[in-house]
């Protein structure tokens, strides 16, 4: 018997989200509880609300609450994603009960005091100023806005814009709290080393008074739909004196509803999700154009996208774009081979099993299931589904990707990018500011 390391950690995550009908069911009419619920003009509301949960609750003001957490050596974080809001606790197992009490107090008894709102707002605006100065993060903002359409619930960044954060007041935060943070559809996940019975009893005691009533005056909803993305588009944020051009392709993908989970995962490993993937080998290992080129699949409740991106040598922007386009087309002209698929399966399953190493990794897997209405058993079926995925299935998805319209967002020197786009006969670009708003006249240059 090999002695095992003791890992006395406790982790808990509470997810608030719209009730799910289950995978594959329509999500229209879902009660949104993440940034997709942000009303027009108040983008960032869900994320700002989540942050304010930690700034004073119950009998504790912000400092007293922080002090109580710090005494445990615990970390408590909250956030909003597109489809839900979440609060996450990690502490030593011996502090599990105290940690849970603080977590419940944050969720149920947040104070939203004016002084704390203003303090957090100032910090938030500082963070947004940094985001909007970072070329890599700018490509994300402008790409999403063009890909989804300016009014789509997924078009804005989860953390909002400076103006929209300025517009949020105490009354709106309290309304958002009641609208977003109620127990209907909420899921509490617990992992780690702990005795179940006392913890379950404590959870019962802490959360049984959680009010299921929603705000009397609900937040204004945005229309939720699949993005109406019909033709390829290019959007450029002009920025001089950069030594690299930021390149980001977005292509349509299915929503996260249980459809083609394995095909997406495996094709991504072949396209740009692993070191030996096509994008990485071409742009980095064969041509040295970038430190790294990669792809990812992002799938939310209502829509998803493929992402292929890299920071490339500004002097070689045209060549890099040509190679990106070549690799997208190659998915059809040279479909994934049996050898590539086999390697993708092995790599994917190894990476996947690594996520069970830590309590946090385990929690992330369970949260991924819970978020989109999958039963916990779905997790156990993952390995089998990956193994059974056929080459034909992956090739069919690859072909659809190769022929899909794309949104290309670029940040870099405008004149040379225009030349590159013309040489490659790509669509005429839309020039925009760091938030995706169209620039006109001289501002374009």
């Amino acid at each position, binding site marked *: 018997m090999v002695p095992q390391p003791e890992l006395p950690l406790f982790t808990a995550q509470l997810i608030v989200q719209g009730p799910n009908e289950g995978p594959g069911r329509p999500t229209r009419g879902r009660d949104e509880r993440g940034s997709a619920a942000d009303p027009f003009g108040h983008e960032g509301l869900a994320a700002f609300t989540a942050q304010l949960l930690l700034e004073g609750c119950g009998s504790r003001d912000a400092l007293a609450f922080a002090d109580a957490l710090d005494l445990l050596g615990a970390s408590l974080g909250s956030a909003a994603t597109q489809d839900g809001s979440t609060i996450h606790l990690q502490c030593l197992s011996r502090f599990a009960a105290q940690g849970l009490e603080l977590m419940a107090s944050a969720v149920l008894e947040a104070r939203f005091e004016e002084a704390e709102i203003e303090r957090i707002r100032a910090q938030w605006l500082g963070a947004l100023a940094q985001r909007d100065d970072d070329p890599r993060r700018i490509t994300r903002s402008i790409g999403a806005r063009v890909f989804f359409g300016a009014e789509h619930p997924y078009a804005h960044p989860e953390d909002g814009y400076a103006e929209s954060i300025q517009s949020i007041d105490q009354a709106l935060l309290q309304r958002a709290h009641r609208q977003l943070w109620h127990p209907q559809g909420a899921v509490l996940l617990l992992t780690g080393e702990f005795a179940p019975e006392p913890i379950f009893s404590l959870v019962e005691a802490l959360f049984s008074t959680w009010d299921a009533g929603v705000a009397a005056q609900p937040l204004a909803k945005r229309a939720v739909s699949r993005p109406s993305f019909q033709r390829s588009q290019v959007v450029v944020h002009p920025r001089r004196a950069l030594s690299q051009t930021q390149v980001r392709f977005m292509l349509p993908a299915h929503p996260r509803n249980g459809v083609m989970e394995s095909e997406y995962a495996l094709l991504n490993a072949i396209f740009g999700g692993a070191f030996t993937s096509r994008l990485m080998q071409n742009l980095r290992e064969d041509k040295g154009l*970038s430190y790294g080129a990669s792809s990812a699949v992002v799938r939310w409740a209502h829509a998803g996208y493929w992402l292929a991106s890299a920071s490339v040598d500004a002097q070689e922007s045209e060549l890099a774009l040509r190679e990106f386009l070549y690799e997208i087309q190659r998915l059809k002209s040279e479909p994934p081979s049996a050898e590539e698929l086999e390697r993708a399966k092995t790599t994917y399953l190894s990476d996947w099993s690594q996520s069970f190493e830590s309590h946090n990794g385990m929690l992330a897997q369970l949260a991924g299931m819970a978020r989109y209405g999958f039963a916990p058993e779905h997790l156990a079926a993952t390995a089998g589904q990956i193994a059974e995925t056929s080459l034909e299935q992956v090739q069919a998805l690859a072909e659809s990707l190769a022929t899909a319209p794309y949104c290309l967002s670029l940040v870099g020197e405008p004149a040379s990018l225009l030349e590159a786009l013309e040489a490659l006969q790509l669509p005429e670009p839309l020039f925009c500011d760091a938030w995706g708003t169209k620039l006109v006249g001289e501002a374009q240059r």
Partner: protein
Amino acid sequence: MTARCESFELQNGLRVFMQPDPRIPLVAINLCYQVGAIHEPPGRTGLAHLCEHLMFMGTERVPHFDLLMEAVGGSNNAATSEDRTIYYAIGPGSALSTLLWLEAERMDGFAQAMSQEKLDLQREVVLNERRQVVDDEPYGRVPILLGDALYASPHPYRHPVIGWVEDICAITVQDVRDFFERYYAPSNATLAIVGDFDLDQSRRELERFFSPIATRPRPLSAPLPPAVLDAERHLRHVDSVPQARLHLAWHSPSYLQPGDAELDVCCHILSQGRNARLNRRLMHEQQLATSVEAVQASGSASILLLEFTAGEEVALDTLRAEVDEELRRLCTDGVSQEELDRARNHIETDFVRQAQSLQRRADLLNQYQFYANTPEFLEPDRERYRALDTEAVRRSFQAVLEQPRVVLEVQPLDAAEEQTPV
């Protein structure tokens, strides 16, 4: 949290640490070469890091290193620091044999397979890495400016690990071969394996792959010259950034040396958690800063580094005056027992969190071997923090704060135009 670790040394000098843990059917390996940026010859900064990149370019027998790695479900990467270079991989327990064979193969056959074509290609990748993390990254030049100010030439910690562009461009195939031959010897490496494997079988395989590699003398490392600042250095850097930042840096005790754990605790008390001293004062009460960070960056030469992002229209002089007052308070009044307990709880949680990861545990075995001369230093490391008292923490902090420091101000381009130079 500790588990049994089997240690042995091959005849060619390679030291091996094996720690079985079958909780999850994975195995992690970590091969540490005791070579880093401080060992680079003059005019060849960046050579250690470029060498790390080239190690993935294959050998004559294994031209496609990563294809074989991923075919068995392995994934891998590497990292170069001033002191050492580590190569790490993780994969299913059944892949251990392949992971070991691949490491042995490049330890043996790297130099013969080196070519101008490979060097030129990876040089371009590294130059792109530098553009990404230094040139175009907001505040990306800060570590370079600090290194330049903290260490006088020719201290080997002065230059950035990624190297100067002109030096990277000057590196030749012969430079790479010479560097490899000198430093990538089995006797200059330690190999750690943690995870789901059979101890005896794996040891046999390991010996089969690594024992034939020829013995080479262990390179002698010159002791690091002392890093001393004669007087406070005040620098002002203007950059295309959205907010002003203030950086304060002092030389501090080396990793695991007396004073190192004390400074870790001080950094927690100053900036970890919303109620930490600097956070409370600067972000909560006076709202002069939008972010605060204090870190004891430990290595063979350590730095105590404090970093502040100024709030809108807050002058860095005002911010610095407040910071200095809070630091003085810690030096004179010390820390409370409650603050010490709080920091220890955070640090203990971090230890447990790290111990969950097979890769991190393999890395720690090598890290402890390098800095403490034994792989089994986890418990003594935790004990360093348990044994601290409040007075030791205060004294260590005061000793560092009494030394000269570097003050680096980063000003946004627009704001800088309205101010007079320092």
